[in-house]
């Protein structure tokens, strides 16, 4: 059953702490969607999961799953499963017993549990490992058992706390795909905590960015990349190009000159952001002249630092396009208007905006 999750006005201050960990947090997660909860470490992401799972109780606010509030329910009756970062398999139980744990707690007959467990083992490519002890598993297997142990309960809401952080890069890819496909297949509303934006982008339908105890933006990855709600969001997602300036009559006036803004942008001071990968190099109709300051090969991309009339600009381009560039060389730069995003917000250390 696909159920939406609605968090409203959640507040929590840990005893003895001066600042609230959650400060009026709102979030709604669509039924059957996979949302990544993203944010720097220490912002209370895990705390939020524990609140939803019922392991902590908020000072204020409400948590609704479907049409019911979860607050009065103890953890075991919420139909919410939290999978911890450290897989936390019970060391005294076998893999199969670990997976069947929740069903056993419900008092289901052994044969039913066994059937479900076997199905889960197959589904998570763990066939034949049922009799093993947790300490005899590899890292990837451990994570899959933890996931199986949660999914067997067919929860209304699945909470994953950094499920991939303990895995090697190669395994991460496979695990990410597995989570993605299982989630689609089962349609379980899922909230995944991560601090890795690439992972969030690759995994989630939508990303909720958490900062200062609140959700600062909740949108699809595309929107967050192209149209960040704040400068901080932009920076968090690798937005290096921030130009201070002034919007006036649909045009942004800055140190590098006038740039067209999307229609409907109101006048006033602010900043313009531009994804580095949106910058194109080479001659073109709207190209401006810039000088190459530095050029670094990063593997799949080349990072080019440019000086555009005294303003620093970063571009990420395909290596073959940057092949001939040398430091000090002059190059044409095009800033596509569709990639420009205006924020009514000044960067913290603004160079004086020329009027």
């Amino acid at each position, binding site marked *: 059953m696909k159920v939406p999750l609605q968090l409203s006005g959640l507040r929590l201050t840990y005893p003895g702490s001066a600042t609230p960990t959650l400060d009026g947090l709102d979030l709604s997660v669509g039924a059957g969607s996979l949302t990544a909860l993203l944010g720097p470490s220490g912002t209370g992401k895990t705390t939020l999961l524990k609140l939803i799972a019922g*392991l902590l109780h908020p000072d204020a606010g409400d948590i609704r799953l479907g049409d019911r509030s979860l607050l009065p329910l*103890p*953890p075991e009756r919420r139909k919410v499963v939290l*999978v911890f970062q450290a897989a*936390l398999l019970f060391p005294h139980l076998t893999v199969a017993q670990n997976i069947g*744990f929740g069903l056993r707690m*419900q008092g289901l007959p052994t044969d039913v549990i066994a059937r479900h467990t076997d199905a889960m083992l197959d589904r998570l490519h763990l066939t034949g490992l049922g009799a093993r002890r947790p300490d005899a598993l590899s890292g990837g297997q451990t994570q899959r058992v933890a996931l199986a*142990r*949660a999914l067997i309960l067919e929860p209304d809401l699945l909470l994953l706390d950094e499920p991939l952080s303990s895995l090697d890069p190669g395994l991460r890819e496979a695990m990410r795909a597995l989570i993605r496909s299982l989630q689609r297949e089962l349609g379980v509303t899922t909230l995944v905590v991560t601090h890795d934006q690439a992972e969030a982008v690759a995994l989630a339908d939508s990303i909720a960015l958490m900062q200062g105890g609140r959700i600062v933006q909740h949108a699809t990855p595309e929107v967050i990349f192209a149209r960040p709600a704040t400068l901080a969001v932009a920076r968090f997602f690798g937005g290096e190009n921030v130009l201070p300036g002034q919007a006036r009559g649909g045009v942004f006036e800055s140190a590098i000159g006038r740039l067209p803004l999307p229609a409907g942008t109101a006048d006033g001071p602010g900043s313009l952001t531009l994804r580095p990968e949106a910058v194109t190099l080479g001659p073109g109709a709207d190209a401006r002249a810039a000088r190459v300051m530095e050029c670094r090969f990063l593997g799949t991309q080349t990072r080019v630092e440019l000086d555009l009339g005294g303003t620093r600009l970063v571009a990420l381009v395909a290596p073959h396009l940057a092949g001939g560039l040398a430091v000090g060389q002059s190059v044409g730069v095009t800033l596509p208007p569709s990639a420009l995003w205006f924020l009514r917000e000044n960067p913290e250390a603004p160079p004086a905006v020329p009027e």
Partner: protein
Amino acid sequence: MKRDVLSALARLALALFLLMPLIPLAIWSVAHGWRFPALLPSELSLAAWSYALSPVSGVVGSLGLTFFIAAVTSVIATALAYPAGRALGRLRFPGRSVVLVLVLAPAVLPAIAVALGLQGLFLRMGWTGTIWGVVLAHLIPALPYPTLVLTAVFARFDPHHEDQARCLGARPLQVLLHVTLPAVLPGLRTGAVLAFLISWSQYLLTLSIGGGKVQTLPLLLFTFATSGRNDLTGAVAMIYVLPALAFMALLLRQRSKTAPLPNRTDR
């Protein structure tokens, strides 16, 4: 080569040293007339065993009583130690180190320091000469061991396992039974065994609180040991030691399956 032989000999010597005092006791228990300078008894006899096992001697009843007292002491001590060990191992709170010292104190302060005052206290309560009085007295030296073992065990235990179980639909009692207890079981068992052994070999507190009416094996053994009946002493000592050894052997087999060695607070 030579070093190997030497260290093998050293190990053999160690094994002999560890078993040494039990050997003459075993021989004495079947000896009749074993005087200097005979290396072995001139005559073997089961008289000491038949007396020790007869109802007259009270040894068998005493064995049961000693076991009962030790078992009850162990269960109570472990039950008290469980929440305390959890608090001490998991939580930081003002006064924690004071509590730790207090918990350790009965293990360090000799029984004699407790026995004198305790006798006066229990006399006034009417608890002397009763089995329960003796159990209460045994609790004092027994408590530190399970408490300290469980403190160490809980310090290593990740309580997220419990959260995880709650998330998987386990009720608090189910979490205790299916997750927490199994996880701390080796420590629980070690602590319980240590408490058992402390009570099992307690002499002075049993003498002062039991007032002779609660005749545990150490008291009985002491009476024979101070009466010059080496054969009876040997037989009673064997009856005393064998169950404990069997128990330890059992524990050892269990333990080799789980944790290879006890925690460092073991005694």
